[in-house]
């Protein structure tokens, strides 16, 4: 037994030593092509504070040696038997710090038979513009019949560690379906990221709100609201959350590459005053469906998308098209002004949704496809950028693919874009970062790094609702679970008149004047 232990110990030491002593071959033949690596981290621009970009070499070869040159230093890494190259956090930090403002150059050598070949050098340009420390997202199956296992997670961009924010499975007693929750849309306030919220659906569903350190579950469906609140955006500085009151439906075809038709049958814009615990109707229209919305960085405008197409049966979802507009918001009396059409997508038989405005206030990113607002299973969905000064928009070709590209967001500095794409297999969305430079150019995107570079490839989940965040969520899933289980659901009050006969485009706390296409609205009958 003792001999066996010694042998195991000796083998381990030998393996470790061999891993540390990779050397660049003295002789090699050059190949005029880039090495194939997964994820594709060749010639990308990366932030100085990103986690190590480990990768797997997929080019032919029995052995691989990687030489990284940065600043006036160089390091040589060996790949393991599967071709995986892992860089320690300490080494990586040294590499990115020394290459800051310049680039890390990689030379990959592959042993093919008895000969070594060298692939073309590729670079990773390191920029000093840091990326936000955290990313929040939901993980969900690309297709489903039931809630399944769902969770909202936060990803640390500096360490590539993932932590559950809320994941019912970690607290459930058994696989009893009564204990499953649908959850969505984790979003935080830009000026104070500790203020955050997400929704929990189900029997005791509501808005899970954290404000000034206190967390509570709020039922925001009140007054004459037909449906509860859904998509939300925190006002950048005030204790206000703009949210839609939506009726989201889904349909499932038996044999179609669209897989899921997801659509809204109803949508209005509400305003939730966090401190007053009061909901008011901000923009209520009977014949128009408002959808995904966001505040401008200064909080003066509310951007949203809307459609006038009604869904009569599931397959007409492919005819529902959205435009993007904005309204001026008056914080003093919580009123909105005139609506301004920004992207008239319906005029080009397309649908535009999910506006996101850069911190510079000059660029608005949105997604556009042939139909719908959600676009997760819509292969025509691409990401676009509008220059708000010139009102011209253009496709971000470096980001887009032939599959669905969607769920985009700007970092707090405005220099980084995060988005989801199904370009790898058409089903499982993965997350990518792209550098958005001062000239409005989006650079070649790169997949979010993981310690195991094959993590996302093997993951049987699809990323969903990705958003940047500058502070960690310090609550554990059990804390949220406890609130759901033990604390009463707090009912929000309704700040708008409930007399439905007076509900029109000027109802609630707002005063809407001349909203394009919605200014003349018949009073709703009782």
């Amino acid at each position, binding site marked *: 037994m003792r001999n066996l232990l010694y042998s195991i110990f000796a083998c381990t030491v030998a393996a470790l030593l061999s891993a540390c002593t990779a050397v660049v071959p003295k002789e090699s033949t050059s190949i005029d092509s880039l090495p194939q690596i997964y994820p594709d981290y060749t010639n990308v621009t990366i932030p100085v504070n990103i986690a190590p970009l480990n990768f797997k070499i997929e080019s032919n070869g029995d052995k691989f040696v990687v030489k990284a040159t940065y600043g006036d230093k160089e390091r040589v890494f060996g790949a393991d038997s599967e071709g995986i190259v892992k860089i320690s956090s300490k080494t990586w930090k040294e590499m990115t710090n020394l290459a800051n403002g310049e680039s890390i150059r990689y030379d990959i050598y592959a042993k093919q038979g008895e000969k070594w070949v060298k692939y073309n050098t590729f670079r990773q340009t390191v920029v000093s513009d840091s990326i936000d420390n955290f990313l929040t997202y939901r993980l969900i199956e690309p297709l489903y019949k039931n809630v399944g296992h769902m969770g909202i997670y936060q990803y640390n961009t500096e360490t590539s560690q993932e932590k559950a924010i809320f994941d019912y499975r970690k607290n459930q007693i058994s696989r009893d379906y009564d204990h499953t929750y649908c959850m969505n849309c984790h979003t935080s306030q830009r000026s104070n990221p500790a203020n955050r919220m997400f929704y929990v659906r189900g029997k005791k569903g509501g808005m899970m709100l954290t404000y000034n350190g206190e967390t509570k579950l709020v039922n925001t469906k009140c007054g004459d609201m037909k449906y509860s609140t859904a998509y939300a955006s925190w006002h950048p500085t005030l204790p206000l959350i703009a949210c839609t009151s939506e009726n989201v439906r889904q349909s499932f075809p038996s044999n179609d590459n669209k897989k899921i038709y997801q659509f809204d049958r109803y949508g209005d814009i509400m305003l939730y005053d966090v401190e007053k615990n009061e909901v008011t109707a901000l923009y209520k229209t009977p014949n128009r469906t408002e959808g995904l919305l966001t505040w401008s960085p200064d909080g003066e405008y509310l951007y949203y998308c809307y459609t006038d197409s009604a869904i009569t049966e599931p397959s007409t979802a492919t005819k529902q098209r959205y435009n993007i507009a904005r309204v001026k918001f008056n914080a003093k009396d919580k009123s909105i002004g005139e609506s301004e059409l920004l992207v008239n997508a319906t005029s080009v038989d397309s649908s535009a949704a999910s506006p996101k405005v850069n911190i510079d206030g000059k660029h608005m990113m949105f997604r556009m496809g042939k139909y719908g607002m959600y676009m997760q299973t819509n292969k025509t969905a691409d990401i676009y950028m509008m220059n708000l000064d010139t009102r011209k928009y253009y496709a971000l070709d470096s980001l887009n693919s032939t599959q669905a590209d969607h769920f985009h967001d700007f970092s707090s500095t405005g220099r980084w874009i995060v988005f989801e794409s199904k370009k790898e297999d058409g089903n499982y969305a993965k997350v990518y970062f792209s550098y958005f430079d001062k000239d409005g150019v989006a650079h070649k995107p790169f997949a979010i790094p993981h310690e195991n570079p094959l993590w996302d490839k093997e993951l*049987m989940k699809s990323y969903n609702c990705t958003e940047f965040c500058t502070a960690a969520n310090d609550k554990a899933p059990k804390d949220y679970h406890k609130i759901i289980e033990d604390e009463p659901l707090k009912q929000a009050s309704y700040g708008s008149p409930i007399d439905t006969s007076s509900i029109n485009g000027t109802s609630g706390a707002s005063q809407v004047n001349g909203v394009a296409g919605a200014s003349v609205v018949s009073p709703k009958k009782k």
Partner: protein
Amino acid sequence: MLETLKNKQTIIASVLWLAFAIAFLGVYEQDIIYNLHLGSFFCNAEYYHDKVIIEDGHLTYLARYLSQFFIYPLPSTIALSVVLCGISIWLSRIIEYKPGNVMMAFLPAFLCALLIGIVGKHMHNAIRDVLTLPCMGLFLIVGNMWVAKKMQDRKDIMFLYIDVALVTFIGFIIGGVVGFFAGLGMACTAATRNLKQGAVCLAVAVACTLYMTWWYSDTRYWLTPLTNFDYKAVAVTELFVFLSPSILILDKKMKSSDKLPNARNVNDKIYGFKFFNIALAVIAACATYFSSERHSAFRGECKLTRLMVNNDFKGMVKAAKEIEEPNWACYGLRLIGLDQTGKLEEDMFKYTCRKSDFPITYEFHYPWLNLYAGQPLYSLSYAMDYHLFKEENYLNMMAMAYDYILVGEKEAAEKILSKMDDNIVYRKWCEKIRKHYGSHIEFAQTHKQFGKAMMGAFRENIVIGQIPFEATFKLSNKMNGVNISRRVYLTLFEKDMEGFKILMNAVGDKYNGALPEPIQEAICILAINGDNDLLEKLPVSPIIGTRANNILGDMRKGMDYDQIAMKYGDSYFTYFFFAVKPERNNNQ
């Protein structure tokens, strides 16, 4: 050791060990282990905590690794059994050498049960083959004897060390359980000699219990059997586990005068070994009893699945007939056999369907049923659901790969196949399937088992929508005649009368006035419920109408399934009124 081997009680206990091994594999298929060690607060490293401890524990990784070699179930079972036996006997030997700790003989039994349970769960998921379970039990006995002989001189290994090692191995919550039993056992033993010692040990047990309850709602794991009767097997097992120390104390008191504390002799070894096996036997007895109900149906399900994968559809129909107590999955898998042999309409509902015959935890067969019915996307969504709840199951992934290929998404199929590649059992199959990436139509043609359903399916699309639409089904294209019966019969199988009605409104005329009996019966059921729409449009035989009224009358008189089935035979009426479909929560 020879004396041990000659001891009849030991041999009997070892046989019971076999039952115990089989039973626990069955009980823990309910995933109770998974839920037992979900929480931890000792581990600060988030990644470690989230991905290793919380997810499944180290043993899962070992189990997954080992289970991939199950192309040769027998040798791998031997290997696994020997390892587990080694651990169990090692522990029992250590414990029995400590005279004051005879009570602790129970502990290794419990630990080994957990070990076997976790490994067994993954073995089961990987192979779905009941043959392996008795094999494992058999080698547990052999290994038990062999290792006991080899390890008889081992002494002086700290129990605490073993506890810590095992706790890390199987999850932190189990640590609390182990500590609780250890403390309780020591308290009971020590109390007979020294009250102070006993109190200290009891405090250990209490501390461990507090540890278990520290993590929010952990106590509920242990109360689960009380709140969810599906876990009755676990409840009774737990009860016996708690009672067995008392049994041991009683036994010990009776024999302590001449056997203890003069330990370290052969008799003492036999004595400790016997206790160890008695504890196992108690657990085995109740676990076997309560898991047997599920296994009778489960064996049939496994057999049908194997036949389906081997494309032996006639064999499926034959095997389905032989199953005495079919469950819902057997019923579903049988439909595939009937369909492929052209007997769907004729025989589908001529099958026993008593309520008690349908216990099942999840619908494994749904992905396959939808796949063979030409609905690859529905098949895919069911497969994904199944994947969530039952984790990696290669047969389920096989269905997913078929689905993706049949809808022409080779990149997604490759994602599944690359995962399956890790298992050498399926590696060849993956290579074979990859050859068909080019054309899904060619794939359907070359795979005759799907050909009939799929050739029509490419032109069809049925949309199932969430309410609020009046019509939840939309026929985008004209329905292919080949698939009519499959779709109709799926709605009948699901007892989805609304879907049946919409479908029949669309395709009823395709039957040219000659409706199969089950469909006529379903139309009568709609009429019984006040919906005469289809009855007015489609021809229903007066004989069937009369029979419907008679059955309804007899049911009102209180006749049960057996009486109705005896009088009228199995039919869609009996299926509709007596078969209970497993309930799922559709709150997406």
